[in-house]
């Protein structure tokens, strides 16, 4: 059985590999195989999987990609992820990808879909919209049509039909994936020292890169391995990270937060993994099932409208409560409209609930960690020096 270190090393390798060797090799195994890239925040990977394709998460270029051409497409006041994604495209690192989905997150990724259409005319490029109306007969019907359109496009690309049973099977696999992921998160909530946030982060990223069944095995191995290992407990504060749902922070930042005295007990890093909460029913019309899951049991995030004022921000408050967090860190990419416009509203809700919070911005290639450590450290200091709960933890 692999150790956590071995699993993490494998994940790190996948994370560092900007040539996407895994996906290339996966595809090369069978000429009928296709790869469909997708950007944050959410796409129904079940549908891609059911078409016999590999859904591949594209999270920009991270901290190591030197962006040379990307800046030719984006002004300085736009976040980093579109420019590094373009860099990946221009440098042919994505030349094996058959389709690209640009889900609705914000206008930047929305517009990137058009850019991609112009620049890579041979790729199946789609802007993927989800409804902002959550009534089954209004937004639901619209979404059913959208999913059917997407399904047709995928069928055309894959050259084969997607049967309801294909889709049901995929939903089943992803249900298992969701269940295991929740288990890892639950483990970290209980005993955060056993699952450092950088490890969990890499583990979750792997899920957006490799085949779902392989990831399920990886998750099982990890859960098993943590049981066997004993790791020292540190005198840290427990916090939830929010606002990092699209462009990802550099791994160093994630490590710095923990080093500065914070255990991350919940986050919104790779939301696609956890976008649908709980099981998607396998019986009945599978498209409808995906639609209903989206309408009624998906997470609250900045790019989704919240119809009732009273409900706004409650998801986060609940997250804090459930994870026993002592505070929230708002970590948002610079120039990220969704995260930054949402932030004041969420903060009001936290204030009402008496939850302390801090906020900072990052870019996927931020190099200076000193300010981050400083802020996270001060936050942890103040929780540790002053809160009654951590007294007991000593």
């Amino acid at each position, binding site marked *: 059985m692999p150790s956590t270190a071995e699993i993490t090393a494998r994940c790190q390798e996948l994370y560092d590999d900007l040539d996407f060797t895994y996906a290339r090799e996966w595809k090369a195994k069978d000429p009928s195989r296709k790869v469909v890239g997708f950007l944050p925040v959410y796409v129904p990977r079940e549908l891609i999987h059911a078409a016999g394709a590999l859904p591949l998460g594209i999270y920009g270029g991270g901290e190591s990609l030197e962006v040379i051409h990307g800046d030719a497409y984006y002004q300085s006041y736009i976040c980093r992820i579109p420019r590094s994604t373009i860099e990946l495209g221009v440098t042919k690192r994505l030349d094996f990808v058959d389709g690209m989905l640009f889900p609705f997150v914000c206008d930047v990724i929305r517009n990137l879909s*058009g850019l991609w259409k112009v620049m890579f005319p041979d790729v199946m490029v789609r802007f993927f919209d989800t409804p902002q109306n959550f009534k089954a007969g209004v937004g639901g019907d*619209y979404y059913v049509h959208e999913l059917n359109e997407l399904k047709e496009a995928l069928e055309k690309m894959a050259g084969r039909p997607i049967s309801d049973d294909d889709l049901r099977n995929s939903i089943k696999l992803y249900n298992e994936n969701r269940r295991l992921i929740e288990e890892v998160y639950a483990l970290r909530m209980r005993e955060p020292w056993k699952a450092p946030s950088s490890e969990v982060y890499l583990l979750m990223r792997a899920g957006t890169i490799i085949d779902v069944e392989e990831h399920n095995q990886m998750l099982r191995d990890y859960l098993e391995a943590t049981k066997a290992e004993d790791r020292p407990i540190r005198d840290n504060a427990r916090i939830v990270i929010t606002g990092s749902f699209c462009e990802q922070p550099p791994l160093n930042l994630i490590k710095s937060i923990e080093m500065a005295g914070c255990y991350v007990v919940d986050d919104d890093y790779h939301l696609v993994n956890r976008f649908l909460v709980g099981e998607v029913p396998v019986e009945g019309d599978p498209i409808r099932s995906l639609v209903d899951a989206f309408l009624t049991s998906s997470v609250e995030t900045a790019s989704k409208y919240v119809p009732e*004022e009273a409900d706004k921000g409650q998801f986060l408050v609940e997250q804090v409560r459930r994870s026993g967090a002592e505070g929230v860190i708002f970590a948002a990419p610079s120039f990220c409209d969704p995260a930054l*416009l949402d932030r004041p509203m969420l903060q009001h809700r936290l204030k009402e609930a008496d939850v302390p919070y801090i906020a900072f911005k990052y870019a996927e290639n931020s190099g200076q960690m000193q300010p981050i450590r400083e802020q996270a450290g001060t936050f942890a200091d103040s929780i540790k020096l002053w809160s009654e709960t951590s007294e007991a933890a000593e």
Partner: protein
Amino acid sequence: MSAKEAVKEPSMLKQKEMIARNYDLLTSKQEHGRAIASTFVPGNLNELIMCFDMLNNLPEINAIQNGLRRQSGGMIMDAEKQGHSEDVCTYVKADIGMMAKGNIAPNGKPMPNPDVLLLSYTGCFTFMKWFELLREQYKCPTVMLHVPYEGDGKPTKNMRDYIVRQLKEEVIPALEKASGVKFDIDKLREILKRSAAAEDNLVWVLNSAKAKPSPIDSYFGGVYYIGPIFTAFRGTQDAVEYYELLRKEVQQRLDEGRGPMTPEGVELTEQKYRLVVEGPPNWTSFRDFWKMFYDEGAVVVASSYTKVGGMYDYDGFRHDPENPLESLADYCLGCYTNRNLPTRIDILAKYVEEFEADGLLINSIKSCNSFSAGQLMMMREVEKRTGKPGAFIETDLVDPRYFSAANVKNRLESYLQMIDQKRRSKPAAA
């Protein structure tokens, strides 16, 4: 804005009077009791709002007004002090800052709270957060109208059905409730007829810039021409009259071979450069910005900003009394920023060609991802298609901190000198 005021043409006076009247109506709600809806310029459903005898208050327009009056800088700072990020759209912050300052309308009276927020979610992500933020303050009913983005460059039946569905099941009931007035589709048809009439004249006016010299400036002047139709007046008799008046004036200038009037009261008839402009203008230094153009003899013959609140020329859309709700849906779908990038490239390239422009100038707005993300690629594509050079300047809408006059001037001058130098080197080819 201490420069002497130019002679006002009748259409200008009429517009001024219309705007003043509307602000007076808004601020005297106490007296007449008509309900107020707030909504956005793109996807502005003024006809529908009128059906319920409601008043329409557009926060973007308030932000523009505050920008022109140079009030917005302070308001933005106020909003930032309240915890809003420096990075986000300054329209939102100007609006929130205005609220903090007592929501004083340009006529000096306090603006009453809206009765309903009509979140016409068209072409811009920020709208959603903007009204979530306002909703938090006003605690008033808020109704979302989700207008899907034309990702593939065309509206689909599914999109149209979805919008009509929302109009029927969400928007109309919400407006009925807020106003206490029952929906009357025939009234809507009447209003839509007037919209279409005004739209015809607007398109005529915008197309007049194909003439040489152009009788209008389609950007700096254009923002005034679109005023009524993008705001609370589309569908009113006032708007119909305004555009008739405007058309006559332009017709006269056209006949006499005259150019547009600059704020300094001189006519720009010697037009050395014809430009197409993409992106909204800067409002805090609007006059200075404009001056940089006319001082060099540059006239804008077409612009995309004059299409944000409705696109009437490219594919000939008109509001249609025969299909009222469907045409409202089509109107929303067709707004400029709801179109995908390949379509926007096509629109701009056609403008450069049809208006015989010297090139495309992009005024990229820091605030506005909807407009700005992807503009550099658009510029290069338009250059490629038309063979005409493009230029790129960066400013902001209402944040004076992001308007660097020296920078803009430097870029504009370099660009125009470049066009000039090119022309001189190939006199035959030109």
